[in-house]
C-alpha cells in the first residue's frame, strides 16, 4: 500500500508537468486558484475564449482528450494517465469547463454510434476546442424520468423535423453542436420510441434562452426547437434505439474519476479556525467541533475513495462501484456547511456582502447554489436508487408506465 507512481506513471507525470510548466496561461493562475462553486468566471476575460486558447494549445501539444484515440484528436492514453494529467493540470483544468460535456459525453457517443466520416470530421475539432458541444436531454417534463421526454422528431424524406423544448442545457448559448434525444414514436412505450441525433446549434428554428435560476444566476438555458431540420445522416444509432444510445452518454458522465467534487469543508475549517464569537474561536466550541469532525471524515472518506478508484485504474482494473457515492455525499454536505457557517454569524449571516468580514460571501452563495448540486447530474434520490439497484442488487422500481404506449401515459397528477 502506497501513494507512489509506478516508474511509467512517474515518467508520464514528469513529461506532463514539464509541458504544463512551459505552456500554461500562468496569468490566470491566481484567479483560478480561488475556490468557487458552479461556473468559473474570470475578472476581465470570457472564460470560453481563454478556455478555447488553452484547449487549442493542448491539442497541438497532444494533451487534449487524452484517453481518445489519436486519429480522433486524442492521445490514446490510459485511464490512469488521464487522471495524472488532471492532477497536473490542476487549476488550469477549470478552463476546460466549456468542453467537458463534449469530451465526456457527446464525443464518446459520436465515437460509439457515428459513421467513420463523422468521427474524423467532428471529433478532432471537438478535442481542439474549435467546436463546443452541448447535451440536449432534460426537458420540463423529463428530468429524472428522462425517457418521459416529449420533443418530437418526425421523418420527412431524408430529414427529420424537430419540435419541442429542452431545459438545463449548460453552454447552449456558446455551443456549436448539440447531442439531441427526441421522441420519434409516441405510440410505443416510452423507452422504445426515442432516437438520438446531433445537430448544428446554428440551425434555423433553434432558439436559446437563458434560465434565471433560484440563486439569481444564469448558467443554464432552455432550448426551443421550431421545425428544425436535421438530416437523417446525423442520426446516432437506430431509429427507436435512442434510449440505449443515451445510456452510453450517461455512462461516460459517471466515469469522471479523479475530478474532485467540492464539499465546502476546507473553506469551513478555515472559517471556523478564524471566526471569533462571543465565547472565543468557533473551532473551540464543542458543538462546532463535533460538526467539523463529521464533515472532516466525510471529506477524507471521499478523497480516499477516489484514491482507491485511481489505484484500480493504475492496475488496469475497472474501478468498483464505490465512486458512485461522491456527489450524493458532497451535495448535501455543501448545503449543511453553508447553513451552519451562516448560523455561526448570527443575524449578520443573512447578509450577502462580499467583504472579508463576511467571509467574502462564499457561504451565502454556497447556500443559494447548493440545491442544484443535489439535483443536477442525478438527484440524490436517483443516485440512491442507482446504488441500491446496481451496487446492492435490489429490485428496480415498479414502473407503471413500462408497457403503456407513451401517448397513453397520464400527464397530470390532479384533475
Amino acid at each position: 500500500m502506497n501513494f507512489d507512481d509506478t516508474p511509467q506513471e512517474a515518467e508520464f507525470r514528469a513529461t506532463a508537468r514539464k509541458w504544463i510548466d512551459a505552456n500554461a496561461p500562468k496569468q490566470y493562475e491566481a484567479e483560478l486558484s480561488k475556490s468557487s462553486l458552479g461556473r468559473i468566471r474570470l475578472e476581465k476575460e470570457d472564460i470560453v475564449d481563454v478556455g478555447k486558447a488553452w484547449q487549442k494549445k493542448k491539442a497541438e501539444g497532444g494533451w487534449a482528450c487524452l484517453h481518445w484515440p489519436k486519429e480522433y484528436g486524442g492521445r490514446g492514453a490510459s485511464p490512469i494517465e488521464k487522471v495524472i494529467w488532471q492532477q497536473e493540470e490542476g487549476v488550469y483544468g477549470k478552463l476546460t469547463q466549456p468542453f467537458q460535456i463534449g469530451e465526456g459525453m457527446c464525443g464518446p457517443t459520436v465515437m460509439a454510434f457515428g459513421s467513420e466520416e463523422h468521427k474524423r470530421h467532428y471529433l478532432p475539432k471537438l478535442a481542439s476546442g474549435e467546436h463546443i458541444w452541448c447535451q440536449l436531454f432534460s426537458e420540463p417534463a423529463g428530468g429524472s424520468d428522462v425517457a418521459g421526454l416529449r420533443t418530437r422528431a418526425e421523418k420527412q424524406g431524408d430529414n427529420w423535423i424537430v419540435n419541442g423544448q429542452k431545459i438545463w442545457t449548460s453552454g447552449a448559448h456558446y455551443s456549436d453542436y448539440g447531442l439531441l434525444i427526441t421522441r420519434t414514436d409516441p405510440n410505443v412505450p416510452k423507452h422504445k420510441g426515442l432516437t438520438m441525433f446531433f445537430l448544428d446549434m446554428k440551425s434555423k428554428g433553434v432558439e436559446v434562452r437563458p434560465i434565471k435560476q433560484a440563486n439569481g444566476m444564469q448558467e443554464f438555458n432552455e432550448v426551443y426547437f421550431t421545425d428544425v431540420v436535421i438530416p437523417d445522416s446525423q442520426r446516432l444509432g437506430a431509429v427507436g434505439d435512442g434510449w440505449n444510445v443515451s445510456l452510453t452518454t450517461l455512462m461516460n458522465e459517471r466515469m469522471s474519476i479523479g475530478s474532485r467534487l467540492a464539499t465546502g469543508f476546507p473553506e469551513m475549517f478555515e472559517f471556523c479556525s478564524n471566526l471569533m464569537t462571543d465565547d472565543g474561536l468557533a473551532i473551540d466550541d464543542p458543538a462546532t467541533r463535533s460538526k467539523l469532525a463529521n464533515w472532516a471524515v466525510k471529506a477524507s472518506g471521499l478523497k480516499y475513495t477516489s484514491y482507491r478508484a485511481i489505484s484500480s485504474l493504475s492496475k488496469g482494473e475497472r474501478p468498483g462501484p464505490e465512486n458512485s457515492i461522491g456527489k450524493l455525499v458532497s451535495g448535501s454536505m455543501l448545503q449543511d456547511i453553508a447553513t451552519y457557517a451562516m448560523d455561526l454569524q448570527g443575524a449578520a449571516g443573512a447578509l450577502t456582502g462580499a467583504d472579508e468580514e463576511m467571509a467574502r460571501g462564499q457561504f451565502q452563495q454556497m447556500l443559494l447554489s447548493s440545491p442544484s448540486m443535489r439535483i443536477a447530474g442525478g438527484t440524490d434520490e436517483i443516485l440512491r436508487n442507482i446504488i441500491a439497484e446496481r451496487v446492492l442488487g435490489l429490485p428496480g422500481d415498479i414502473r407503471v408506465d413500462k408497457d403503456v404506449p407513451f401517448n397513453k401515459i397520464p400527464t397530470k397528477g390532479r384533475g
Partner: protein
Amino acid sequence: MNFDFSDEQKQMRDAARKFLAEKCPPKAVREVLDGKAPYDKELWKGLAEMGFLGVAIPEEFGGAGAGHLELCVIAEEMGRANAPVPFSSTVYLAAEALLLAGSDAQKQKWLPKIASGEAIGTLALFEGKGNPSPKAIKLQASGGTLNGVKRPVPDGAIADFAVVAARTGSTGRDSDISLFLVDLKAGGVEAKPLTNIDPTRGQAELTFTKAKAEPLGAAGDGWSILTQVLDRAAVLLAFEQVGGSDRALEMGRDYALDRIAFGRPIGSFQAVKHMLADMYVSATLARSNCYYGAWALSTNAAELPEAAAAARISATQAFQHCSKNNIQVHGGMGFTWEFDCHMYYRRANASALTLGSLSYWEDQLIDRMRKKNAA
C-alpha cells in the same frame, strides 16, 4: 498509486473469512452471548494455530512477522464474524503496548504467549465514567506495587496480564502517568466481571491491592505511550467496525430481497432501498478512511494521529448506522433475540465506546488537524 491491499493480503483476508465462517458461525457467538462461556476457547486456539494472533508480532517473539496491513485485514474479518474472543484487548492493546514500549525481556515473556494463544492481555486504563485523560488516572504506583481500581477493563476477567496506567506524580502534567505490566494471576488483583451491552466481549472491574508491577517504558512516559497505543488500536478496531458494518449491510440487503410484504419484496420500496443505499455510503466512507489509517499505521507515518481519529470516527458512525438500520429493515423480526441483528447492534455500540467515545475522538481529530495546520 497503489492504495489497496496486496494480493497476498487479500488472500489472507479470504483465508480468515473462510476460517471464521466455519469456526465462528452465529451459533458459536450465541454460546458466549447466552453466558455459557466467557469467550470461545476453541476459536481462540484455532486463531493461534492459523497464526492470526501473532500476525503483526515479529518472528523473534514467536509471531508471523507479517505486519500491520495483514493484521488490518484479519481485524476486518473478526468484526464481520462478530468473533467472541478477546482479540482486540490482547492484540490491539496489550501486544501493541508491548511492541511500542516493552523491554526485550518483557516482549520475550509475553509476545510468544500471545501468538500461541496461551496468554490473554488487556489494557487497564479507565477508572469509571469518562474518556481517556491523564487527570482521570488515580490508581497509585509506589515501590513496585499498584493500588486502586480500574473499570471497565475489556476482557479483564479472563486476562492473564494487563498493561496498567498508573499515577506516579502529582505535577498536573502528562508526565505524572506511567505504565506498568501486571501478571494478573500472581496475586494482588481481584477481577469482578461487569455486565455490559455486548456480552460477547466481556468487561470487568480490576481491584489492585499491593499488586506487583513492573514498569513498561520509561517512568513518566505513560501518557505518551498510551496515546500511541490508542491510535494504533483505533485503526485496528476501525477495521473490525468496517467488517461489522459490511455484514450488517449484507444482512439487511438479503432480508430486503427475501421478505415479501404488500405483495412485493420490501427491497423494491424506495424507503427501504434508500436506507440501504445510505448504509452503503457510510460503510464505503469508513472503509476508505480505514485504508488511510492502515497506510499510516503500517508505515508509522507522521499522519497517524489524524488518520487514526478519522478512521475511528468514520467506522464508529458506519457500524452504528448500519447495525441500527439493519434492525429497521428487518422490522419486528429484527427485534427478536432469535435473529442475529442485535448481536451487531450490541457490538457496534460497545465498540463505539471502548477506546473512548465518539465525541472524544471528534475532539481529538479537530485538535490534531489544527496542530497540523499550525505546523
